[in-house]
C-alpha cells in the first residue's frame, strides 16, 4: 500500500512537470473556470433578487450547496474524471493500454490516476474560499459531528461518482466512442448545483432513489446544516459502496473482454 502512495506522489510530480510545458494554456483554463464559477454565482444572486427561498433553501444555504458541489466536482476533475472518461477510450483505441496493463500494478490505478491536473490546484483556492464564505454567512453554526459527517459524505460522493464514471468508461471496451455518454453524465450531474427541492414528486424521488445524484452535494450540505437523518446517511454510504463494487466488477469484465477480443 505504501507503494501506491509513493506512486501517487510520483504521478503528481510527473503530471505537474508535463503540464508546466504548457503554461499559458493552463492559466487561461484556470481563469475560465473561475469566471464560470463567478458567473454562476451571479446567476444565483439574480434569481434570489426575485425570491428569498428556493423550496426550503435560503440563499446562504444554496451558497453552501453550490460551494459543496464545486468542491466535489473539483476533486473529481483533477483526479479520475478525465483519466477515465477521455483517457481510457483513447488508450484503448491507440493500443497504448497494453503498456499499462503489463505494469506490476493494478491497471485500474493507472487508468484512473495517470494524469493528475496539478495546476488546477490554483482554482481550488476560490472554491475553498467560496465554501468558507458560505459557512461564514451561515455563522459557522455546526457541530464537530456534523462537520465529520460532511467530510464523510464528501468522500462518499467521490466514491459514488468514481463508480459511475468507471461504469461509463468501461463501456468503451465494447464501443469505440463513449464520450457522448460521458457528456450526458456530465450534464446530468450538474443537477447537483441546485437544491433538489426544485423537483417535485416523481423527479425528486428519482434523483434520490433511482439515480442518486442527491448524494453529490445535497446530502453533505444537509448533514452540515443538521438536516440529514441517520437513515439517509446510511443509505448514502450503502449506495456508494454497492455501486463501487458493481463498477469494479464491470471493469474487470471489460478488461477481460479486451484481452480476449483484441488482436
Amino acid at each position, binding site marked *: 500500500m505504501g507503494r501506491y502512495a509513493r506512486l501517487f506522489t510520483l504521478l503528481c510530480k*510527473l503530471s505537474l512537470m508535463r503540464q508546466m510545458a504548457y503554461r499559458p494554456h493552463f492559466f487561461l483554463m484556470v481563469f475560465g473556470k473561475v469566471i464560470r464559477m463567478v458567473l454562476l454565482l451571479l446567476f444565483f444572486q439574480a434569481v434570489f433578487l426575485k425570491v428569498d427561498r428556493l423550496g426550503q433553501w435560503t440563499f446562504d444555504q444554496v451558497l453552501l450547496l453550490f460551494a459543496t458541489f464545486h468542491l466535489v466536482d473539483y476533486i473529481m476533475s483533477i483526479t479520475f474524471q478525465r483519466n477515465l472518461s477521455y483517457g481510457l477510450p483513447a488508450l484503448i483505441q491507440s*493500443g497504448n493500454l497494453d*503498456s499499462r496493463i*503489463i505494469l*506490476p*500494478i493494478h491497471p485500474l490505478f493507472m487508468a484512473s490516476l495517470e494524469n493528475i491536473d496539478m495546476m488546477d490546484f490554483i482554482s481550488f483556492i476560490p472554491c475553498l474560499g467560496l465554501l468558507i464564505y458560505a459557512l461564514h454567512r451561515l455563522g459557522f453554526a455546526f457541530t464537530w459531528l456534523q462537520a465529520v459527517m460532511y467530510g464523510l459524505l464528501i468522500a462518499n460522493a467521490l466514491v459514488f461518482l468514481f463508480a459511475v464514471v468507471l461504469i461509463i468508461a468501461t463501456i468503451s471496451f465494447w464501443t469505440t466512442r463513449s464520450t457522448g455518454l460521458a457528456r450526458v453524465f456530465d450534464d446530468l450531474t450538474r443537477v447537483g448545483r441546485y437544491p433538489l427541492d426544485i423537483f417535485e414528486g416523481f423527479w425528486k424521488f428519482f434523483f434520490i432513489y433511482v439515480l442518486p445524484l442527491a448524494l453529490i452535494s445535497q446530502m453533505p450540505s444537509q448533514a452540515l446544516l443538521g438536516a440529514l437523518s441517520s437513515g439517509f446517511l446510511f443509505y448514502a454510504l450503502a449506495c456508494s459502496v454497492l455501486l463501487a463494487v458493481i463498477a469494479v466488477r464491470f471493469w474487470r469484465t471489460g478488461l477481460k473482454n479486451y484481452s480476449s477480443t483484441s488482436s
Partner: protein
Amino acid sequence: MPAPFTTSAEPLTVSARNLTKTYWFHEKEPGLSGSLKALFRGRKKWVQAVQGIDLDLHAGELVGFIGPNGAGKTTTLKMLSGILCPNAGTIDVLGHVPHRREKAFLKKIAFVAGQRNRLYWDLPAEEYFQFCQVVYEIPHDRYQAAKKRLVEMADIGDILTVPQRKLSAGQRKRCELVAALLHDPRVIFLDEPTNALDLVNARKLREFIRAKARDGRHGILLTSHNMVDIGEVCDRLVIIHGGRIVFNGDLAALRQRFLPVKQIKILFDGPWERDELAQLGDLTRADIHEAVLEVETGATARVAALICSRFSIRDITIMEAPLERIIESIYARKGR
C-alpha cells in the same frame, strides 16, 4: 510441423503449446447501404490469427520470430506477455500463466512494442526511469547499478535530461529499451525493435540487444521484418505464416531446408552466350557484362570451374543466397 528445436540445454523460460487465437470483427459492405445494413445485421467474420503453434525459449537464447504482415507475430507476443488471452493452448513463462498477469510474473518480463512509446513525450527519460523504479519495486542500489550499466550500453548518457520530444527516433527507442530493462526482466519480448530506425541507429540497437543476450541469463524473443536483424542477431529463427509455424531452427538449417543454393556472380570480359550459361544453373540476372547464377550448394565448385573454363570472365564471386530470397520463397509457398 517441425519439432521444437533448441540450441541450448538451459532451462526453459518460455514454453507454449498448441497456442490458438481467433478473433472476429463485423464485416461491412461499402457505401451507404452497407452502413445501414451493418447497423442492423452485422456479419461476423472470424480470423484465426494463430493456429495451434508451439514455441520454446531458453535462457540465453535470442530468437527471431518472423513472418509476413498479419501472420500472427505480434498476437503471439502479446499472448506470451499476458496482454492477450489465448483461445486454446497452454503457455508457461517462468512458471506463470501469462494472462493472469500476476505481479510476480509482470516483474520478470518486458515487452517493448514497435510503434508505441511508453515514455512521456514532454519528459526526460530520467523521470520515467524513476517511475519504473517505484512501479517495479527495484531496490535502490540495484536500480542505480542497472541504470548505469544500461545507459552506458545504450549510449544515452548525455540525453537523460532531455525531453523525449526533442530526441530523434533512434534515441527515443534506446530510452524505451533502457526503461524496459531496468527491472532486469528475465524474459524480453521485442516487437519490431528496429522499425523506423535509420541504418546507424538500427545497428546501435542491434549491438545493444546482442550485448544483453550475451550475458546468458535472459531469453529474448524479437519480431522483425529486417533481414539484418535476423541474420546478425538471432541464434534461432522461428517463421510463422498464416498463423502456423513453418520453420524453427538456425540459419544454416534454414538455408539447407528451403533454399540450398549459392549465388555465383560473374563479371564478363566481353559478349557472352545466355543460353550457354543458363544450362549450368538458374539464371536470375543477366546484363551485358554481368550475370548471377543460382546453383545447388553441392555443385558450386564444379560449376564455378566450368564457368571459368568456358567463358571469358573478369571476376567471379560466390555468395550465400540472400536471406530475403529464402524468406520470400517460404512466404510464397503457403497454400500447403
